[in-house]
């Protein structure tokens, strides 16, 4: 049956967070003649960009240089980042952050009126712009409010995209469920941008909000696009036990320190340099101790746990993050959200007590395989932000590079999709109708499945539990294979998933089932990629292959969905321009410089 009022746009953006909104504005500003749709499963201001805290990296100060930001990013990535992409990213970053400033982002300021910057982990110089410790919140609301002024943007708020429409080798839109009515409808487009963010919810303990289920990755994967570097999962070293709520790295950037149950600053034992006394004016030292990279800090926690040097609590083991020496005034002006979160959800006031913290799944380096132009292998399909993997983050992302990535690659995706749309014919609606019908049938099958199978929440619990078991901070062949087997079994059991809710209007039980379906696909891709990378690099640590192996694995993994639904993994060379692989040295800026000169 043909729609009476067909939904059709030139460019369709799936995802209304930082990357999606930036992409939509790029199209609207530079191509006012194009019609734009934004499909988002939540109102855009609920997107998880909102929860980012610490800041956004870009070279703006006179003592800084693009060269330094590039080197920090590449060494932070354990040389798995594509260097042409990093160079471009660093080059375009300042302009994009100034653009946000001109759109009203309330950056914290110096007395002179210039934007202020703060230190961040793995960065050799202070280059992280910040809006107190609610940077993501301010960036998201600035972008969302800015996008309201463009009449060419139509929003589909609370529509859940379920499938890409592909004909003649070209992406031509998607199907989406309007939550309010339960109707599944096609939205046609000449070009599509996926910007749906990360998928931390495949793990049990994560900083990610409930919506971070990787739907965008899964629909691209099902349309034949590869998922790249999926095995690289970032554990942030400082989450609150129990909830997994993030305590920003900015708390260490401002001078906070980590201590074990003996009161020791244990990072000194993990090749991250020497601790300076807290009253030393040089503390905190850049690229040193608490300002080392996230992968190394989270790994150090596990080693301390093995030594019995962690505290134990109701929600597992933890260490202390101490910011008391910063004093109440500095905490309230620079880290007000940290205080609010620690009080509300940790039950302690960081002005007078240490904050209990433990590593928590925070960010996915892997994602939809794109090139430097944000284009995927499927013509007409683009991706940007955490759902995409260009890759500038390689095996470990540096804190404050991800918000920058949203705007740099969001804007590029928007511009390139607009150009593609300009040169393309409208979607072949007649030929796509059968795909829409098939999708309706697929969803009806889930909705009308006879009772007796597993509940969504039970399958989800087993999935997250096996991911932590086999694909956590340290991994083994045996562990990953077991996780893969359990996931395959869950994949089977999903076929008879039993919903409590069989109605149409705002059926969140159905949406949870569809999200679970997608999470199972990407979890399998992650497990297969982790199984096949038999080396240790950045956040991917194999205790059975503890060394980095550049001969075999200076390569991106690419997981493609086979005909039987299981992932096939292959590898592609990393792009090296000027920085041949070297050793990752942290401890002092002098050492880092030395390493750089050697290379």
């Amino acid at each position, binding site marked *: 049956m043909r729609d009476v009022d067909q939904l059709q746009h030139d460019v369709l953006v799936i995802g209304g967070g930082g990357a999606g909104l930036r992409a939509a504005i790029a199209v609207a500003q530079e191509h006012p003649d194009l019609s734009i749709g934004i499909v988002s499963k939540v109102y855009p*201001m609920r997107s998880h960009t909102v929860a980012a805290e610490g800041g956004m990296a870009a070279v703006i100060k006179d003592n800084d240089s693009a060269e330094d930001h590039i080197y920090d990013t590449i060494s932070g990535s354990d040389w798995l980042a594509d260097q042409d992409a990093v160079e471009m990213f660093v080059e375009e970053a300042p302009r994009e952050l100034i653009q946000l400033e001109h759109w009203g982002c309330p950056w914290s300021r110096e007395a002179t009126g210039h934007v202020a910057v703060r230190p961040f982990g793995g960065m050799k110089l202070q280059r992280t712009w910040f809006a107190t410790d609610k940077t993501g919140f301010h960036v998201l609301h600035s972008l969302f409010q800015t996008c309201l002024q463009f009449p060419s943007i139509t929003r589909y708020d609370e529509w859940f995209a379920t499938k890409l429409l592909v004909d003649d080798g070209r992406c031509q839109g998607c199907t989406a469920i309007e939550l309010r009515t339960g109707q599944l409808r096609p939205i046609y487009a000449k070009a599509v941008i996926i910007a749906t963010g990360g998928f931390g919810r495949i793990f049990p303990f994560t900083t990610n909000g409930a919506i971070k289920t990787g739907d965008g990755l899964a629909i691209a994967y099902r349309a034949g696009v590869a998922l790249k570097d999926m095995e690289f999962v970032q554990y942030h070293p400082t989450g609150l036990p129990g909830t997994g709520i993030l305590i920003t790295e900015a708390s260490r950037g401002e001078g906070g320190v980590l201590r074990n149950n003996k009161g020791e600053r244990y990072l000194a034992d993990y090749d991250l340099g020497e601790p300076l006394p807290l009253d030393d004016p040089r503390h905190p030292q850049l690229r040193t101790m608490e300002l080392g990279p996230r992968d190394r800090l989270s790994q150090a926690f596990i080693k301390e746990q093995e030594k019995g040097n962690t505290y134990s609590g109701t929600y597992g083991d933890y260490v202390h993050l101490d910011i008391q020496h910063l004093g109440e005034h500095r905490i309230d002006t620079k880290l007000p959200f940290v205080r609010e979160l620690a009080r509300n*959800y940790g039950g302690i006031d960081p002005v007078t007590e240490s904050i209990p913290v433990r590593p928590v799944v925070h960010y996915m380096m892997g994602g939809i395989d794109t090139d430097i132009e944000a284009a995927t292998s499927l013509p007409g399909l683009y991706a940007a932000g955490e759902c995409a993997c260009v890759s500038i983050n390689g095996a470990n992302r540096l804190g404050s590079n991800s918000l920058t990535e949203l705007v740099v690659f969001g804007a590029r995706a928007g511009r390139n999709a607009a150009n593609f749309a300009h040169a393309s014919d409208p979607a072949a609606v007649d030929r796509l109708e059968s795909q829409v019908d098939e999708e309706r049938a697929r969803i009806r099958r889930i909705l009308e499945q006879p009772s007796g199978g597993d509940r969504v929440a039970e399958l989800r619990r087993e999935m997250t539990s096996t991911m932590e078991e086999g694909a956590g901070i340290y991994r083994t062949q045996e562990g990953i294979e077991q996780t893969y087997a359990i996931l395959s079994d869950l994949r089977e059991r999903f076929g008879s998933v039993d919903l409590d809710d069989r109605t149409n*209007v705002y059926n*969140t039980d159905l949406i949870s089932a569809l999200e679970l379906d997608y999470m199972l696909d990407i979890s399998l891709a992650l497990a297969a990629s982790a199984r096949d990378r038999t080396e240790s690099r950045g956040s991917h640590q194999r205790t059975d292959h503890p060394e980095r192996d550049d001969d075999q694995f200076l390569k991106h993994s690419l997981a493609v969905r086979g005909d039987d639904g299981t992932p096939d993994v292959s590898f592609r060379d990393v792009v090296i321009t000027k920085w041949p692989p070297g050793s990752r040295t942290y401890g002092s800026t002098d050492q880092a410089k030395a390493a750089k000169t050697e290379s």
Partner: protein
Amino acid sequence: MSTAIDTMVRFEVFRYQPDWDEPTYQIYDVPYREDWVVLDALNYIKDTIDGSLTYRWSCRMGVCGSCGAMVNGYPKLTCAAFLSEYLPGPIRVEPLVNFNVERDLVTSIDGFMEKLESVQPWIIREDGATDDLKSEYLQTPAQHSAYQQFSMCINCLLCYAACPVSSHSEEFIGPAALALAQRYNLDTRDEGVEQRRDVILKDEGIWECSFVGECSAVCPKHVDPAGAIQQAKMTGAIDYYRRLLMPWTVKS
């Protein structure tokens, strides 16, 4: 607090679907955990008792603004409403008042989205078209402080549920949208005060607002929309008399 681990808390949750004649309250007994919030209890119900219970949530850390509801008659973020504050129960959870209910705890916020857009919550610059993006606009910490509080609004809409004017006037632009208008008006980078004037001052609501301050009292982010509205009224009144008495001082 030494509440036993096997203590149960009774929840009375508002249930409604569009094809029902009227809503009902459903009873659920949920195990008490000292560090649980109302949202944890809703998730417990959905995951283990009744998957059809419908509500919005995402960040569970008080910043996405999705999970507002009436908890024992008072507008709250359910992710910030600790069970320990409501012992021994029962805890009644209902959708935010002053909004139409779509289903269970989910309300329609279409009206707010239109009001938000109507106040033009974006930077308006006369030089907008020639923006070269070479450097940032300067803004001192003091200038930043002037509007910062009003920029903290997470659009959770608790203030609309608390607002006595919103309860009888659907047209009232309302606390959050007016606070955001004031946020841009006070931003030194913005030149859009004139463009926002009409929509704000023509709004009957702002003159009706009696500064009861309920909106500011319920705001989980201390935005103080009541203060913003008072400021806007003051500016509006001064502006009115200036136009009347000293027309030559007013930009055309």
